[in-house]
């Protein structure tokens, strides 16, 4: 795996976002700048309510930043540049699981056969075989979230934006999905930007971990993780791992203390 | 041959009814065709039809005399070319038990009528005014077209009716009634054949043929009411061959018709009588020349 650091997939410059809420203006993102190299796996951690989801949504183009820019240098085509998995499953309640997962392909007008094949593949990947015909309401919280992940993966986007995608999964499924994610990332050479609330998960998965402060969020740390690939469970006990964990935990604590 | 017949629409008010028997007879017996006319009968609201004829969107209709004056007062160029009715067809009906035998007996009574407009209102006011009564002497109630129901359920003491219809209906159902006729007090203009000034001046011959055809149709109908009734069944829905009530309605309305056109002089009187009432009621603001409201050009 060769990566040139000049080959950027995403550049965020002085990004600012504020909301007009019921009592005045609320600054959420405060001059956030970072970039992500092509095929890198970057995790974001930060306190609850800090602005992590807001950052991802701004990158996905779902909200207009109050200031700053989001660029995709050298992106080939406008389509399928980013794929976003929301914090909530947000499945369409009138579509079965299968129909929910095939939706992006239908929107992209892929041929029928391809849609069926890809959809089935993704359902298998997230372990939902047998529930193809179930409606969202018939799924447990974790199953719905897995379906949402499958719906994103099926688009095969260049940059995967994941907002706490494993929040509702049980420990085992969570580990399995993490492994799968690494496999997919590795196989298909994706760029991944993922919000998580588990420091251990962030270190285990990422090339770099970004730390946001609480609101208004700014970037206080950009920690490279120097663990070799492929990652194995054994690495969790390496000193590098423990050290990264300590650093991140302290940074988080101090940034919360500083802002409150 | 058919192609030489001139197509015209004749507007009748309301819906198909035996009272319009002459027009059905005229079609079926070829009276219209003899005069080169292919007549299409249409039905609808009187005021709407007057507006359509006044604006020359259509040429002929049957309308009551007061409508001609009221609309002319508002600038509609409509004109009566042939009176159909001899008597103004409005009256006041009451149950025998109310002892309303003459107009003066209406004092202190409640009187139902469809509304404060149209022939029934004007007819009633003419009757009451002629008897020296004013609106303070009785209570008028707008009850829509529910006169029969309101009378027999005792909602009102008397109702304003069309002479040829409601009284027949009431009597046929076994109610004994007293009837006051407007025509007994005052001579007014009832239904007439109406056209507009433009047609009269530019298509005089057409108008003449229509007026003459109406004359012949009236005579033919009166001559053989049974046959006219039979013919009407083709046009009027829900008419049983032996329906005694509807047959009676036809006979009663024939009594109201005018067969022999009269000298113009007394026509002016009738129109002036009408105008006087409309002015009194405030329905017309200014006096117009009634001589322009009708034409006696086709009176033989």
């Amino acid at each position, binding site marked *: 795996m060769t990566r040139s650091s000049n080959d950027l997939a995403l550049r965020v410059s002085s990004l600012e976002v504020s909301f007009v809420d019921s009592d005045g203006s609320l600054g959420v993102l405060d001059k956030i700048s970072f970039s992500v190299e092509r095929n890198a796996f970057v995790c974001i951690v930060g306190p609850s309510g800090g602005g992590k989801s807001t950052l991802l949504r701004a990158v996905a183009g779902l909200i207009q930043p109050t200031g700053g820019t989001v660029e995709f240098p050298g992106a080939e085509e406008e389509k399928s540049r980013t794929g976003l998995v929301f914090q909530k499953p947000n499945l369409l309640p009138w579509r079965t699981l299968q129909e929910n997962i095939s939706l992006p392909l239908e929107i992209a007008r892929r041929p029928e056969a391809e849609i069926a094949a890809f959809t089935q593949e993704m359902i298998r990947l997230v372990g939902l075989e047998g529930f193809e015909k179930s409606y969202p309401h018939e799924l447990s919280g974790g199953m719905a979230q897995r379906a949402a992940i499958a719906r994103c993966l099926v688009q095969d986007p260049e940059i995967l934006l994941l907002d706490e995608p494993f929040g509702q999964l049980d420990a085992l499924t969570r580990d399995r999905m993490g492994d799968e994610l690494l496999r997919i990332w590795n196989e298909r050479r994706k760029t991944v930007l993922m919000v998580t609330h588990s420091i251990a998960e962030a270190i285990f998965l990422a090339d770099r971990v970004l730390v946001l402060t609480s609101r208004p969020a700014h970037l206080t740390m950009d920690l490279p993780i120097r663990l070799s690939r492929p990652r194995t469970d054994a690495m969790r006990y390496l000193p590098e791992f423990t050290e990264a964990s300590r650093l991140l935990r302290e940074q988080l604590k101090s940034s919360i203390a500083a802002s409150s | 041959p058919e192609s030489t017949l001139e197509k015209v629409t004749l507007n009748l008010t309301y819906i198909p009814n035996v009272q319009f028997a002459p027009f059905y007879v005229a079609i079926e017996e070829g009276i219209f065709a003899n005069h080169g006319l292919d007549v299409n009968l249409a039905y609808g609201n009187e005021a709407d039809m007057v507006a*359509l004829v006044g604006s020359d969107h259509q040429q002929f209709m049957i309308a009551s005399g007061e409508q001609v004056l009221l609309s002319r007062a508002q600038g509609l160029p409509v004109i009566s070319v042939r009176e159909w009715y001899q008597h103004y067809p409005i009256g006041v009906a009451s149950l025998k038990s109310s002892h309303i035998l003459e107009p003066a007996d209406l004092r202190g009574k409640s009187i139902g009528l469809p509304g404060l407009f149209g022939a029934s209102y004007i007819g009633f006011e003419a009757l009451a005014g002629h008897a020296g009564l004013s609106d303070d002497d009785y209570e008028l109630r707008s009850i829509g077209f529910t006169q029969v129901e309101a009378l027999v*359920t005792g909602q009102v003491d008397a109702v304003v009716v069309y002479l040829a219809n409601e009284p027949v209906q009431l009597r046929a159902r076994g109610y004994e009634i007293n009837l006051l006729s407007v025509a007994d007090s005052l001579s007014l203009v009832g239904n007439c054949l109406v056209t507009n000034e433009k047609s009269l001046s530019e298509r005089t011959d057409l108008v003449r043929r229509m007026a003459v055809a109406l004359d012949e149709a009236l005579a033919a109908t009166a001559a053989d009411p049974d046959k006219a009734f039979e013919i009407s069944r083709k046009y009027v829905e829900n008419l049983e061959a032996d329906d005694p009530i509807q047959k009676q309605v036809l006979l009663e309305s024939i009594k109201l018709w005018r067969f022999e056109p009269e000298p113009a002089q007394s026509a002016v009187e009738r129109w002036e009588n009408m105008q006087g009432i409309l002015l009194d009621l405030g329905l017309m603001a200014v006096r117009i020349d009634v001589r322009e409201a009708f034409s006696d050009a086709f009176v033989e």
Partner: protein
Amino acid sequence: MKARSLSAVRNLLLQRISKNRLLLLPLSLLVFLLLWQILVLALKLPSFILPSPAEVGKKFLDVLASGMLWRHFSATLKEILLGLIFGVSAAALLGYGLSKSPIAERMLSPFLVGSQSIPMAAVAPLLVIWFGPGLLSKVLICSLTVFFPVLVNTLVGLRDVPQDLREVMRSLRSSPAQTLRYLEIPAALPVFLGGLRVGASLSVIGAIVGELVASDQGLGFLINVGRGQYDTALVFVAVICLVVLAASLYGFVLLLEKKLLSWQTWRKEN
């Protein structure tokens, strides 16, 4: 635990009954006829004011046999169906358009609302001049009646499409047409169909209003005929046909809801 199993039994019972709902309609009809007959006997009104069920039944068979009923019924049905097609399509299209442009909505809505409250009788001559006295003007009135409730519910339904599902569609780069097809139509459907329920039953009144003003066929015309001849039984036959027609249209929309919203039993939880 007792309360729970009791209510379980009750639910089962209700399920049974509602399954045999073919029985329910005749039952309520019977109750209705009974009430009517009692009313007739109690009020002692002459039959030309309130005919008895038997008289109306006889009249019904008469006009059915003579073919008269069917002729007028089908005339009205035609007006209604055409009116529904035009009214509903216009309302759905305009509703979609307005939901995308709040300014246009604000500019147009006073007129749309106003158009609802123009009594047909008042503009009849204009209607006759512009659209003739025939089918067209009735279809138009009918469309206008259907139009409004469907429009309002289209607007409300589209406004209530959850914002986060809209975001999903945007994140999938769906075109407006695709968002319409995959998100907006299914999401707004329940409320839209609520409007259609109202519209479908109002459509009957719409067609009749036109017929009452001026016509020579249709159930409204039949009512005029009956009233003119003091044949109240005929009026009742026509009115009952109207009622049945309206109820059928309503029932049809309910069926449609059941079919199209089968996911709704499941929808509750998402």
